[in-house]
């Protein structure tokens, strides 16, 4: 509860707050805001290769970027990516959290080791799945054929939709344990007596979930959704390392497009413009979502 402190008067708070916050917030400002301002400046000039200079171009870069279909296409792909990840991860994480909330032999061990796929570096995740999904030596194709799900080895990255699906599944495999643990925390805060009372009243498992679990998980879910959406949107390395935005632009999210524009097309000015637009969209989205969250926090 964020109520008045006991031991000091109101006046001293501002100074202490400043002392405590200057380093953490100063660091965030320096590493985030300063570069962002720099990016805005670059977006207003016609700069090609990084480090070189260019003439002032006003809003030309923005006009070109927003008028080009590629930007909107990438934005669309990004939306698919974010939504896909949110859906798959929520399903996996919720299932895992519900399972881990139960009591069964080995649950304590399971609660620790579920996190295994989250603690490995992205590069290793890429190596693992490139190998597992490859036709020369990978296990997934033979396994699917044995189970009768497919009759011929398939290319998991052979087309845009296939690649996007594969990427979403791989990224979710990687992230769901973290979300699961956070959800588990939320679940554990729900007192058991509520469940007992509902059971006594004759509510079945599904009804209990709908009436108790789901509503009480909302706060946790909301925070996870906000943070998850922002982080998902900005994911770059796993997409770049696995498909580089291909095939045929099928996994070219906005971060990938920005990278290519900056470092392959050597159009820094355009890339900066794209970044500014993307940031504005994301910040807007974040503020809107957080607005719905904030009242609950301070109203205690």
């Amino acid at each position, binding site marked *: 509860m964020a109520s008045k402190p006991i031991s000091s008067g109101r006046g001293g708070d501002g100074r202490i707050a400043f002392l405590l916050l200057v380093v953490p917030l100063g660091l965030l400002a320096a590493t985030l805001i300063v570069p962002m301002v720099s990016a805005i400046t670059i977006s207003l000039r016609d700069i090609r290769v*990084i480090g070189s200079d260019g003439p002032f171009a006003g809003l030309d870069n923005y006009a070109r970027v927003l008028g080009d279909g590629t930007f909107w296409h990438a934005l669309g792909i990004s939306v698919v990516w974010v939504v896909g990840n949110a859906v798959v991860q929520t399903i996996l994480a919720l299932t895992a959290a519900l399972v881990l909330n139960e009591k069964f032999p080995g649950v304590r061990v399971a609660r620790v080791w579920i996190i295994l796929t989250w603690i490995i570096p992205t590069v290793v995740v890429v190596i693992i799945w490139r190998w597992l999904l490859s036709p020369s030596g990978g296990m997934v194709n033979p396994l699917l054929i044995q189970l009768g799900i497919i009759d011929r080895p*398939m290319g*998991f*990255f052979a087309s845009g939709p296939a690649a996007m699906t594969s990427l979403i599944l791989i990224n979710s495999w990687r992230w769901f344990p973290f979300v699961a643990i956070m959800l588990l925390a939320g679940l554990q805060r729900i007192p058991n007596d509520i469940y007992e009372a509902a059971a006594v009243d004759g509510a079945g498992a599904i009804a209990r979930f709908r009436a108790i679990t789901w509503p009480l998980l909302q706060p946790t879910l909301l925070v996870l959704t906000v943070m998850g959406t922002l982080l998902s949107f900005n994911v770059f390395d796993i997409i770049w390392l696995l498909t580089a*935005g291909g*095939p045929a632009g099928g996994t070219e999210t906005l971060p990938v497009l920005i990278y290519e524009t900056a*470092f392959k097309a*050597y159009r820094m000015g355009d890339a900066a413009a794209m970044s500014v637009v993307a940031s504005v969209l994301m910040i807007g989205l974040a503020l809107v979502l957080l607005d719905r969250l904030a009242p609950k926090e301070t109203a205690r």
Partner: protein
Amino acid sequence: MRFKGHALAGALALTVFGALPALAVTDVKIWHMEQPPHRVQRVQELIDAFNAANPDIKVSQEPQSWGEVYAKVPAAMAAGNAPDILFAIPDFTTVIRKAGQLDSVADFVKELDAQHHFIPATVEPYSYDGGVWAVPLYNMSLNFWYHKKMFADAGIAVPTTWSEWKAAAEKLSKDGVVGVGLPANKQLYTDQTTYAVMVNNGASELFNADGTLRFDNPKTVESYAFYKDLYKFSSPDAANWTWGEAEACFASETCASILQFSVISTYDQQGGGDAADLGVAAVPHADGEKNSSTIAYSNAAIILAKDAAKRDAAKKFIAFLLEPENYGKFLNMEPGLFLPVTTDGAKSETFWSDPLVVKYKPQVEQMIANSHAGMLFGFTGGHVFPAIGPISAQNILAETLQKVVISGEDPAAAVKAGQAQMIEATK
């Protein structure tokens, strides 16, 4: 007493200060993209030998990854901590030239030419705008690799024309075997295989003599249509392939044939290493063409250092590398992959005495022969158009291919769109 003290101090000072110039060491930093550990080791051996023989110069290497270096080098140049020597390929060189002022090394190259005789095709990609912008160091060209036994068992002769190639691929593609492993990734490897096909249909020129684009022409469209035909017999995951996947497919005998610079290392380590079964030939040419051709990359060293002492030291090291006794060892950092750019290098003892080269001698000889007919898009016909830089960096050739084989677009339309993209990229 005091006088002696002064004299002693003076003498001491003189010896110390007199000795100082001899202790001044020039640092030379090299960035290259040959990251596999055994390549790094080999380069280090050569660096150590050079440093020992030249105590006033200290050369060091920092291997980088191709994936990062397009961003890293311009950033480093902007921040003032660029390397002194950078290994590069022709189109990357045009980008570097745009990003920073390069000094022409024409005189240095002439000197080296008098001594070692460069193969002219290896210097051409770096000679334009009245200067020579890098020193050729090693050559690579794409070849057609195949499993002799698989072809013999199916009763197929090595294809030399496109129709033979298609027939061979079709016949071999059964029971999980891939007739020909062709990539369709938006990546350099696919650029290379696409161009290798184009070049064999007379579609080698991307630019007209006046610098305008001529990518969109019937020969190019035919080439893309043929690639699409062949791609039917490729691996299901080929849309994600880089050089490594193709080699793995070949080594595991899932692929009966592939287009690759060299498979010798992987074939030897992971593929059973039967030298008698490894076949290499020129990339098949279109039925209407007379001879085969291929794509060839002359890799070179750019001297980025501005300081005179560093430039001299850098030149010394490059000259050291091109000495036949050292050159053979340098090329064999990856035996069979890197080919000599100089005629006396091609006769180097140390080149031919490497165990892998000895084992696969016929294949290496064939590779060298194939490389003479090599070309590189944007650097052909005696003209060099630096506008090729952004076209190559964005893999437009590969992207156009993806439109045809993955999105199923009509080749003519895709090529037209590709040309429009190229024009846009070079604005």
